[in-house]
């Protein structure tokens, strides 16, 4: 009897959050956090790849900043092949950044832009330079036998019971 109480207490303390909390099907199962960052030299150039896609994994952009010389026009695109030219689609429409403008989004936790699995991220900079930096996470996800999994680019795997979420504490 004493052991049963101890078992129940232990389960409640250590494992309750893992199985007790359901999430709506429309809600993201994980919040991407930055695992990599890159500088953006900002040179005026046609559409240029800045992050290479990985088959089966999605790029989640968690933060980006550009400090353009006035006036610069920037655009972000995703796609495959050389410089995203295959199946490319616009992530952020072509935008003129005028005097006094800084383009800054995201604090590194949570995605600003989610790319399709396998797609690379490209940028176009026109007229004047727009240097800065960009942070991202590269994550794959799926399910096997009703069990969801999250595969990070560190190679770790988290197993989560179907319909539940894994809380990192």
């Amino acid at each position: 009897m004493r052991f049963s109480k101890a078992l129940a207490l232990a389960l409640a303390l250590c494992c309750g959050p893992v199985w007790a909390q359901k999430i709506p099907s429309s809600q993201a199962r994980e919040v991407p956090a930055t695992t990599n960052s890159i500088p953006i030299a900002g040179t005026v150039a046609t559409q240029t790849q800045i992050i290479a896609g990985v088959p089966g994994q999605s790029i989640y952009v968690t933060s980006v900043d550009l400090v353009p010389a006035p006036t610069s026009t920037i655009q972000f695109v995703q796609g495959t092949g050389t410089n995203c030219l295959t199946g490319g689609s616009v992530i952020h429409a072509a935008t003129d950044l005028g005097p006094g403008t800084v383009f800054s989004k995201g604090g590194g936790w949570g995605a600003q832009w989610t790319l399709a699995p396998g797609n690379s991220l490209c940028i176009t900079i026109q007229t004047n330079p727009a240097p800065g930096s960009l942070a991202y996470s590269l994550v794959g996800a799926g399910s096997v036998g009703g069990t969801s999994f999250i595969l990070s680019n560190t190679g770790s795997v988290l197993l989560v019971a179907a319909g539940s979420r894994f809380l990192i504490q």
Partner: protein
Amino acid sequence: MKKLSIAFFLFLGLISTAKAQQSVVIPATMFSVPITGAINSPNDLVLASGQVGKSIYVTAVDLVPAATAAVQFTQGTGANCSTGKTTLTGSMVFSAGQTYMKGDGFGTFWVLLPGNSLCISIGTALAPGSLAYAIF
């Protein structure tokens, strides 16, 4: 009772394994430093010193540069990050009215290589502000 005990400890072992495999850690600010913003180019100024086996995660930064200030964040080892130096940002030249504000102290946007220090290069004009980071 014996079988139950074995199952219990096996279960705890599995849970421990799962926690040990967690891959996503959200850095939160541990330290903050002022950036006086004095011109130091071409010798980068160390803002945060690297520690062996640990990475610096920048969680927030703000700069209010004077017009024409040229700012670049870099990482590396040794004096002025000069050994193995790589860039974290492009070389950003600020014009009138442009400020640089990123992050709120929870989550990182620049992940440095283990052991590397964080440096800043400021040229042409002043660029004062502050920076927050975690190291682990």
